[in-house]
């Protein structure tokens, strides 16, 4: 998928059937965000930049839903909040055994397309820690 540069309220991502998380950033003040806005929420600049985020990160919170909302019949399923290495916090599905603090990576699956996180190994986790500490 090619990078997107500015304009419009949001780029294509998993919510429009494209297998990616998109991180939005402000070229003026460097703020980063995930939920779409047409202007930077920190400084108001109106030409945010969109790029595909690395799907790797650390779990901030995890739950397994046992009593789902009515249209979702496939309980139990797990939902996680993950801090991606690219500096945004995203929500996705995951394996039910995942816990806060674990290192995970997402793939995109299903119809409709949903992000699904699973554990990665310790070596990759160390690389992530170095990368996150360098994220500007």
């Amino acid at each position, binding site marked *: 998928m090619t990078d997107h540069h500015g304009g419009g309220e949001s780029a294509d991502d998993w*919510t429009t059937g494209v297998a990616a998380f998109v991180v939005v950033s402000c070229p003026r003040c460097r703020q980063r*965000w*995930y*939920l*779409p806005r047409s202007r930077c929420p920190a400084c108001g600049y109106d030409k945010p930049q969109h790029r595909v985020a690395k799907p790797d990160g650390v779990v*901030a*919170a*995890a*739950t*397994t*839903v*046992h*009593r*789902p*909302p*009515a*249209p*979702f019949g*496939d*309980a139990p*399923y797990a*939902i*996680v*909040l993950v801090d991606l290495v690219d500096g945004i*916090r*995203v*929500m*996705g*599905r995951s394996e039910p055994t995942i*816990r*806060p*603090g674990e290192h995970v990576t997402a793939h995109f699956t299903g119809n*409709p397309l*949903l992000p699904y996180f699973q554990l990665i190994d310790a070596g990759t986790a160390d690389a992530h820690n170095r990368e996150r500490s360098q994220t500007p």
Partner: protein
Amino acid sequence: MAWISGVACTEFGRLPGLDALGWQSRAALAAIADAGLEPAQVDGLLAGYATTLRHLMPADLLAEYLGVKPSIAFGVSAGGATGLSMVATAAALVDSGSAHTVLVVGGENRASGQSSDTSIETLAQVGHSRYEVPLGANVPAYYALLASHYLHSRGLDAADLSPLAVQMRRHAITTPGAHFTTPITESDVLSSPLIADPLRLLDCCPISDGGAAFVITDRPRGSGALRIAGVGQAHRHQHVSEADLENLGAASAAHGALSQSGWTIGELDTVGIYDSFTVTLAMLLEEIGICERGKAGADAAAGRFERIGTLPLNTHGGLLSYGHCGVAGGMAHLAEVSRQLRNSCGSRQITRPARRALVHADGGVMSAHVSLAVERP
């Protein structure tokens, strides 16, 4: 200066027979009578939304139903914080001279008027329609994520939240009108069905019918008027992925209200803190600074929040056991605190003299925060 002159809170429960307007008018008329006033004296009316009554103009609708013709009337939506948000707004209206006698109302037949699936689906819309709801997330799931982070960050486990549910039930048992009054133990909480791990059924408030109302005035009316000594609010996010989980806005709102009143937390006699889930109560108690970090459950287990304790909390049983009928659920804490400050709770009266109280409500996923400091002069 603004006064809470009229207070009313109905019984909460599964109580078919009234629709949303019926609950609102029952509470409204009771609050007006409690203030020693007549409906015709109401010159402002703020009405909270009701999910069973999807009306664009809930305040004008209720005004017409009651036969009042206020100069100011509008509907308010801030999730669970709506009730206190309306009281804060009413206080500002009377302080500014824009109105003199403002009726604040919430009421809904949330239990009887729709299936619980419908209620849960409707409320799930506080999540993001594109980035959260399609994952199968709903309100218990959002709060379970908060609980997951809360427990992990403090080195606690689910059992550390259950004393809060037990305390709320203990208060409800002796409160007339409470939805759930069967005694429970920590073991009962931990063996109740999982809703969204780590939250179990007894960690979650029920869905109830009911209503509540206040009359806010520019001078004391009736025989039990209480002074609004301070107001604070904070709105820092809507969606859970954008929340600063260690600084949600509760501290900012509560400290704003306390600083206006000139009180410290140690000078409070009783508190009413929003408790949609055990984790909500724990996070608010700790962020506001009523409890040390990680200690909310332990404080409950030690009896701090009992009627005979050092800081009686939600003495009506809270949302968790008195019940939750929507907007009025977030008003019941203030109604109970008002009764305690008026020394009118009889055998349920807290043992320490009740002069000063703090109430706090949140809406959404701990998104909207409103605090009030209230005093019996």
